[in-house]
Structure formats: structure tokens, C-alpha cells
């Protein structure tokens, strides 16, 4: 006499396998490594300047432009540039002490603006590095805001003032 009927045994095994797959969790993703590396860790260096320190180095916007400050956190300050009330770009000053990887791009930089190394950050961003530490970036949020516009606005930051910080 059989202790287990084959059909029941197969169903039982299939059930077990389904449970095992469920227990293993979801499929691996491209973000798992970053998640494992940073879980519960600090993302901002204690040595970073406060974001509020950077505000005075942002461009002065005159009509039809307007600057609206958004996030201001340790090591970073972000503002939206608006033209006639419509957002056209995001302006950021970032203390790279919190993410030194950000400055590796500049080692291959062949361009300079106002005496500071200049790089493209993707297709929509243009950035320069002040004193090998502060990244100043302008990113288009409107297609009409071109790379030339980004460079124009990068020059409007008080870059020399920022360079006095360290």
C-alpha cells in the first residue's frame, strides 16, 4: 500500500515550491546593491557646509526670471528658476564632501567656465566644480532652456564668493 498517492504528492511538492519562491522574495533588481550598501547609513558628511550657507551665492534673478528656493539641507541648496512663472531649470550647489564620486567626472573635463572645470551631467545638466569641492549645477526642466542658457546661468552664480569658502 502506498503511503502517498502520487498525484497528491506532486501537488504537495508543487505547493512547497511555490512557498519557497514566495519566501525567496522578489526578483533581483538593479537597485539591490545600492540598497544593501546604504541601509541605515548616513548619506551626508558631518563636514559638509549647511545648505543655508550657499544661498547667497545663487544668481540674482530679474524679471521675467524668478528664483524659488526649494530644498535646503546640510551640504546642498536647490532652487527652481522660473521664467514668466514657468519652471525652466533647477539650480544646485552641492558640497561634494558627502559624495566624492561626483567629482570624478571633472578629472576628464576639457572645458572651463569662469576658470572652473566644466562637465556635462547627462543630457540636461551642466556643472562646474569650485575649489575641487563645490559642485554648481544647472539642469534644464524645459526643453527650450538650452545648454547655452545653462552656461549663462552658471556664470551668474557668485563663483568667486563660493571659492572663498575653503
Amino acid at each position, binding site marked *: 500500500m502506498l503511503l502517498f498517492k502520487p498525484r497528491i504528492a506532486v501537488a504537495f511538492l508543487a505547493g512547497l515550491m511555490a512557498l519557497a519562491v514566495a519566501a525567496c522574495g522578489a526578483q533581483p533588481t538593479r537597485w539591490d546593491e545600492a*540598497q544593501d550598501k546604504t541601509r541605515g547609513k548616513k548619506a*551626508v558628511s558631518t563636514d559638509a557646509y549647511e545648505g543655508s550657507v550657499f544661498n547667497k551665492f545663487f544668481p540674482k534673478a530679474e524679471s521675467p526670471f524668478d528664483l524659488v528656493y526649494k530644498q535646503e539641507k546640510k551640504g546642498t541648496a536647490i532652487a527652481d528658476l522660473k521664467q514668466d512663472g514657468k519652471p525652466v531649470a533647477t539650480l544646485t550647489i552641492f558640497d561634494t564632501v558627502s559624495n566624492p564620486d561626483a567629482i570624478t567626472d571633472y578629472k576628464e573635463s576639457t572645458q572651463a567656465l569662469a576658470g572652473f572645470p566644466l562637465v556635462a*551631467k547627462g543630457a540636461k545638466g551642466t556643472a562646474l566644480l569650485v575649489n575641487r569641492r563645490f559642485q554648481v549645477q544647472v*539642469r534644464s526642466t524645459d526643453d527650450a532652456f538650452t545648454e547655452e542658457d545653462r552656461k549663462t546661468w552658471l556664470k551668474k552664480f557668485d563663483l568667486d564668493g563660493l571659492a572663498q569658502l575653503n
Partner: protein
Amino acid sequence: MSEPIFKVVDALPAKNMTTRVLHALDWVVPGQWNNLVGFENSIKVISGEDDQKMIQKIGERAIALYNDKGEGYQTALWLYRMVDNLQGMAGWAALANKIGENISMLSLMNKLTPKADTTQGIDFCVKLVVEIVAFCKLNGIPGDSVADFVKSLSDYRDEALMRMAALICLDGLLPLGPDFMVKALGFLDKSGAGDLEKNERYQQVKSLIPGENAKAQLGFISQGVGAVKDWAGKFVASRDLGTDKLVGSLKNFMSGIDGKLDYVAALLDMTTNYYEHTGTQSVARSLIVRAMGEI
């Protein structure tokens, strides 16, 4: 709380009761809200970048920033979630998904209990204050900066503006009528700390509302709601918002709702989580925008 941000954004539904209701409110804030779901997709749309290396860098920095509890993104998400999670909601949400494309109010009325106006008024106030606190957490300003929040309201857009539109329409106008702000503030004045303590939404989020006890928190809530009164008044007036228009837009998928606004409000309360849904989208946007500047 410790759930990875990419999983939370990936889990946002492309279509459910919440998204249907929000789409129905598009006329209130035209074109402001696209239901942006999926972590990678959100990075692509917000950054405008297609290059996979660039997307990877932005995503990795965003994950790191989220995982640093001190940066406030986890707290903001927690607030948006908690204020939207009420007892019994899971069962109703499951029911709503089964109902299909058209909801007949008549068939549901015997299952619903409209909330008392006082409860609804306090709910509205607590949700608004959650927005103030979450806004401060996301933007790095002190948690009680009501003035900064009010100043920024005129600059609200995308899912954040839709959240405010839905708050005014679904938690204000629908259950309380056109003078919802006056009513809500009146309930706060009359009811006091005791009634606040009995409110389920308040209980869910009170640990993060500024103030050392219910009385002090009531003061903060009154101050916050009072400060938003003018903005809300202008929001309603400039769009000529009224219950008729609102009912008209909801009728596209809900039938038999005329004259049953308190039941509709109760149903939406139990079957949608627009604060959590759009709040998750706001947290993702803040993270991605910041990460773009930090890579």
C-alpha cells in the same frame, strides 16, 4: 518604514480607485498630475535622462538619501501613509476593486456610515497639518514653519498641487460644503483637545505634530489651518469650485450620488488613499531632484 524606496515607488498602482478619483479631479488643476509610477520611470521622467548609467547614478544617490533617516524623507513618507490608513480600510479597498467600472451608490449605502461633521472637520485639519509637517521635512525647514509653508503654497505643482486640490474637494467641500474652512476651524475651536484625542487620524500621526501635548498640538493645528484659510478661499473662488461641479465630475464612474454627498465622502474616505499615493510621488520627486544635483 525600512521598506526600500524603490520598492515603494514600484508598488504605486497605475490604476485603482484612488487614481480614478484623482483623474476625475483633473479639471480642478488641469494637467498638473500625471500618475507617475515606478522608480526607474520616475527618474526618467523627472530628470529627462535616457542614459542608463545616468539613471543608475541618480537612483543610487536617491536610495542613499532616503536611507539616511536624518534627511527627513522617511518621516515624510511615514506621515503621508499614516494619515491615510484607517481601520477597516483594507476591506473597503478590496470591495472597491471588485465593484468594477461603475459604482452604484444605492447598493453601498446600507454598508456605509457617514462621519459626523466634527470628525470630518478634524480629519481635514489633521490632513492639512500633515502636509505642513511633511513639507518641512522634505525641504529641510523647521517643522513648525507655517509661514514658509503658506508662502510655498503658491508654488505648489504636480502631485503636490493635486493633493491639495483633492483635500479641498474630497475632505472639505464634499462632506462639509462651501464654507468648509470656517466649519473646520469652528470644530477645532469648539471641540478642544478631548475631541482631538478621539480622532483616529490624529492618533495615527500625533507623535510628529509639533507640540508637547494634545492641547499644544491643537494650537498648532489651529494656527496652521488658519494660515491656509486665505489660500484655500482663493483656490475655491478662482476655480469657481462648488459641490455641483464636483459631483458632476465624480458621476462619470459613480451613479446615484445626488443628495448623498456625506455617503460619497464616507465611501471615498474608505476606498482611496490619495495622501499616501501622491505623498509617495512627492517624496520620490524630492529625492530624485536632490540626487540629480549630487552626482
